[in-house]
Structure formats: structure tokens, C-alpha cells
């Protein structure tokens, strides 16, 4: 277990390093730069600025300078606003994390319940309705759902106010983020549950005189959960990228929108900072779901 964890962590660090490397060179390969504007500043000014931020050095050297700073915990400052990147990331991520976290919890909670219900009531009307709705939610992309929700609940019905800094209502953004994974988890849980309910050990449990709901919760759910847990890592990845779109639709200033404006402005430290941060997050999530997997399925041994 320890050996496995160490191996995975080293692998994770390498992964993040490679992502940083690729991003850095790709970013520098895009034409234009942070100070190349329509109204070009004077050549002398630009030269001073570039020297100040090491932009005059070869790209390779820049990369190692950046990495060196990073290891000291210094993400640099934004070339646009001059603020510390780490502060910006921290602030905007706390919004994204809240949105994403709530969406993950909501989709897991609703998905597991709906999926189990569909499995237990198979071929009856609750199953049919659940499967119809989830097919819909899986098929329609989140930005369309988000726009539709906004249109219906804010504009037509007027139940929920449009998000603004003054009135921070996260309900619609969370629902838009959660719908797809919720639908996916529902379907995953249903098929996995049906598979498990047909297993011999479920019959054994019933033959022992275990109560029906205990058969479901103790004997079936834990086995049915195994494929769902493998999905939690990718799910978080989905929600974090999905939130770029949803944050834009709802005009919420999360990490996603910082990332996008960073690219538009060629704000190199901002692009690098958000990329490395998101990559690390992904890698940690995947690692966590693998370790969680072990907790549920005794057959998985890591050596």
C-alpha cells in the first residue's frame, strides 16, 4: 500500500511536470505576447517590461526560471493586473470548488438513489421515467441546459435571480453542472445494481433471512458502488472543465473564467498557474478515487 502510494505520487509529479512543460512551450509558440497590443507601447518600454519578466531570455531558460520560482511556492504575478497569481487562483478557485463540490455531491446523491430505484423497480413506470430523463440529460450538452435553465427559471418564471456579485444564488449553476454527471451516475448505478442483484451472493443473503433493505444496502450497494467510484475521478475532471462553460453562461468569476481571460490576454503566469493548479487537482482526484476503490473492494491489492 505504502509502496504503491509513493509510486503513484511520483508518477503524479511527473505528469504535472510534463503538462507544465507542454503548456509553457505551446503558450510561447502562439503568436503575440502580453505586451503586444494594437496600440503598441514604445519599443523601449516594451523592452524594459520584457526584461523585467524575463521574456527576453530563451524560452527554455524562462521555463526553468519559472519552475524554480514555482518550487519556492511563487506563482508570479499577473502581467495584466499585477496581482499575485496565487491569490487570484485561491479566490476564484474557492468559488469553482464550491460549485463543483456541491455538483459532485448532488449528482452522486441523486444518481445513486435514482439508479437504485430504477434497478429495483425495473420495467415499472419509475424506471421508465428515470431512464427517459437521464437519456435526455446525457445527450444534451451542459451549456445548452444551463442556458435553458436560465431562460426558464430566471427569465420566464422569474423564480431565481440571475447570478450577480450582490446576489449570489448558486442554485442554477450547480444544477446545470450536476445534471450530466447525475444522469450518468444514475445509469451506471442502475446497470451495476442490476448486475449485482442477479449475483448468487444476493440470493445467499436473502436465504439467510436478511431484510430486503439490508440486502440492498449492505450486500448489493457496496458491490454496485465499485464501478461508480471509478467514475468519481473523471467526474470531478468533467465538472471542473464543465464549469468553465457554466461559469461563463452564468457570468460567475470562477477559476474557469480566469483561465479563459488569461489565454485571451496572453497572461503567461496566469495561464501557467491555472493549468498547473488544475492538472494537480485532476491528478490528486484520480489518485484519491483509486485509493477509495481499495477501501470498497478488498480484492484490489496494490502490490
Amino acid at each position: 500500500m505504502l509502496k504503491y502510494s509513493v509510486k503513484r505520487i511520483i508518477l503524479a509529479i511527473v505528469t504535472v511536470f510534463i503538462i507544465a512543460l507542454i503548456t509553457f512551450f505551446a503558450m510561447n509558440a502562439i503568436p503575440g505576447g502580453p505586451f503586444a497590443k494594437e496600440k503598441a507601447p514604445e519599443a523601449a518600454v516594451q523592452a524594459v517590461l520584457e526584461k523585467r519578466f524575463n521574456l527576453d531570455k530563451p524560452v527554455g531558460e524562462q521555463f526553468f526560471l519559472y519552475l524554480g520560482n514555482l518550487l519556492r511556492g511563487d506563482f508570479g504575478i499577473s502581467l495584466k493586473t499585477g496581482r499575485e497569481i496565487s491569490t487570484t487562483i485561491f479566490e476564484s478557485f474557492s468559488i469553482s470548488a464550491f460549485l463543483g463540490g456541491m455538483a459532485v455531491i448532488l449528482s452522486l446523491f441523486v444518481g445513486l438513489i435514482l439508479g437504485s430505484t430504477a434497478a429495483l423497480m425495473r420495467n415499472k413506470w419509475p424506471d421508465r421515467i428515470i431512464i427517459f430523463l437521464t437519456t435526455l440529460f446525457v445527450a444534451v450538452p451542459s451549456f445548452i441546459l444551463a442556458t435553458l435553465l436560465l431562460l426558464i427559471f430566471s427569465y420566464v418564471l422569474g423564480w431565481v435571480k440571475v447570478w450577480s456579485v450582490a446576489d449570489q444564488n448558486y442554485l442554477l449553476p450547480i444544477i446545470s453542472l450536476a445534471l450530466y454527471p447525475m444522469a450518468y451516475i444514475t445509469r451506471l448505478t442502475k446497470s451495476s445494481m442490476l448486475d449485482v442483484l442477479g449475483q448468487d451472493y444476493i440470493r445467499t443473503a436473502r436465504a439467510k433471512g436478511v431484510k430486503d433493505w439490508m440486502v440492498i444496502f449492505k450486500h448489493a450497494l457496496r458491490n454496485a458502488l465499485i464501478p461508480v467510484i471509478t467514475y468519481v475521478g473523471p467526474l470531478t475532471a468533467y465538472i471542473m472543465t464543465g464549469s468553465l462553460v457554466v461559469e461563463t453562461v452564468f457570468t460567475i468569476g470562477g477559476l474557469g473564467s480566469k483561465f479563459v481571460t488569461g489565454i485571451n490576454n496572453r497572461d503567461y503566469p496566469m495561464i501557467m498557474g491555472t493549468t498547473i493548479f488544475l492538472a494537480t487537482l485532476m491528478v490528486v482526484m484520480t489518485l484519491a478515487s483509486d485509493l477509495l476503490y481499495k477501501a470498497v473492494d478488498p480484492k484490489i491489492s496494490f502490490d
Partner: protein
Amino acid sequence: MANPLLQVKNLHTVFPIQSGEVRAVNGINFNLDRGKVLGIVGESGSGKSVTAYSILRILDYPGNISQGEILYENEDIVRMSPGEMRQIRGARISIIFQDPMTSLNPVYTVQNQLVEAILLHTKRDRKQAKERALEMLQLVGVNEPQKRLKQYPYQLSGGMRQRVMIAMALACEPDILIADEPTTALDVTIQAQILELMQELKSKLGMAIIMITHDLGVIAEMCDEIIVMYAGRICERGTAEEIFYNPRHEYTKGLLRSIPNFALSKERLTPIAGSPVDLLNMPRGCAFAARCDAAMKVCLTEQPEEISINENHKASCWVNVRDTAAEGTEGRQANG
């Protein structure tokens, strides 16, 4: 005389599916007395497991009992509430299954699963239940029982898992143990060990056993009575002696012929020709008629009644009805 411990009366079990109704069990009757061993034999698909699952009402979806009674100590299991049914399952009547590899829950330890059964049906607390679990593992001859308790099913061999299943089934001292082909999935030496263990436990604990198999040879010596099933009906029943040396139904004779080294047949091993009957469209007459070498006209149109050959032997076969009617005619010998 007291009533038998278990009486199955005119049991019908069906599986309604899209294309019709699969009639898995079609009106069977049998009794089981305390401490006796009843063998049920028949080809694959003859309804042995469905009969067993009906008794515990653990049929797979969409199976259900459409008709009949199952009296356990004179109470009808078919009409029991789910709560009453749970008092029976695992406590009064237990079952072990064909495939020990898949019958234990993979995500819980042996101890967890044993203790669960014990806590459900006895007044023991958790600590006493653990002691009982250990005691049961020792009883069924699991080596290093202390260590096994902490292990997960995947860490045990097939034979070991079946022993654990037996321990779990017997932990609450049931009156009846149903063993649904308990050795089919195991290799030959382990098979013998498990059967030996069951016999030993029976003499120690005194429960009645319903022993299901498709291999007559395996169970003959331990059974007080044997029931031969075909297409969800009982075609012949009697003591092992009668079934083996005086078979009356052509299907039984076919089964015997398919046993290797069986004394009755000097010929080569012959499986029964033809394929099992379509349970969605049961024939009007004897279900075996289409495959039977001795079939007569009446066999195709009417179901044979069960007639007594002697006090230890009954068969449902028109050939025997005719022979019994024509007084003095000896039972037909196997033709082939």
C-alpha cells in the same frame, strides 16, 4: 402419527416472461420427515433449483408460486408474510448453492457473513456470535479457522468456501438443509470430502436434508428417498434401492444408463437422446413422451397418474399403468 416436517402439495411455480409463461414446476408433491434425507435428481432444467427456491421463496424475478401449498410444521409457507418468511430462512430452513465461488459476498469477510446469520436468528450478542462463528468453522473442518474468519472469500479455495457456506447454513441449527448441487462445481476429491462432511454433520446435528443433484450416483447411498424430476414434474420416487434396481420410468432408466460404471448397464455410457421439453409449451400428455422409446398413443394425449409399484416405490408412467392392469405381467425391462 405426526405430520411430516415439510409437505409440498401440488406446487406450481412459473416465470411469466414476454413470450409466455415458463412453467418450471408443474404440480409436485412430496413430504420430508424430521432427520431424513430426500434426494432430488433430474437433468439440467428439470426444475430442481426452482423447487428448492420455492420452498424458501427466494425465486429470481419474475418467478412466483402460482398454486399449491408448502407446509412447514403445518404452516403454509406460501401464505406467510415477508416477516414470518424471514424467521424461516436461515433459521428453520437453510440452503447451500451450487457455486461456492460466487455464493459468498466478495466485499465482506467470512466472519462478517457468518456473524450476520447468527445475529439474525439467535439471541447471542456480537461477541458470542463471533465465538459461534469460530466454532462452526471448526465443525465444518476449515483449517486455521481463526485466520479464515478474517479473510475475504477470494482468499479461500472452492472447497473451503463451500465449507463456509455449510457453516453459515447450519449456524442456527435449522431443521432442514437444502443442498442444491453442493458439489457440482468442485473437483472430484473435494466432492467426496464435502459429501462426507454433510453426512457427518447430519448424524451430529440431526437435520433433515434435501439433496439436489443431476448425478444419481453421487447421492444414492445417503438418501432415504429419491425423487426423479422431469419438466417440473415428479416421474418416479422411491428408496434408492428401488430407483436403482427396479426403475419403472423410461426417464429414470435413461438417467441410470448415463451413470458411468453402473451395474445395471453393461453397455456404454449413453446420454438420453433428444432435448428437454419446451416449458413455454408443455405437451398435453407425458412430458417425456417425445423422447421415450416405449411411448404409446395414450402417452401423447394424457398425463399419467402416479401409481404405486410397491409401498416404497411410485411411478408416473402409462407403461406401468398398463402393466399393473394386466395382472401378473412383470415390470418391463429396459429396452436397449
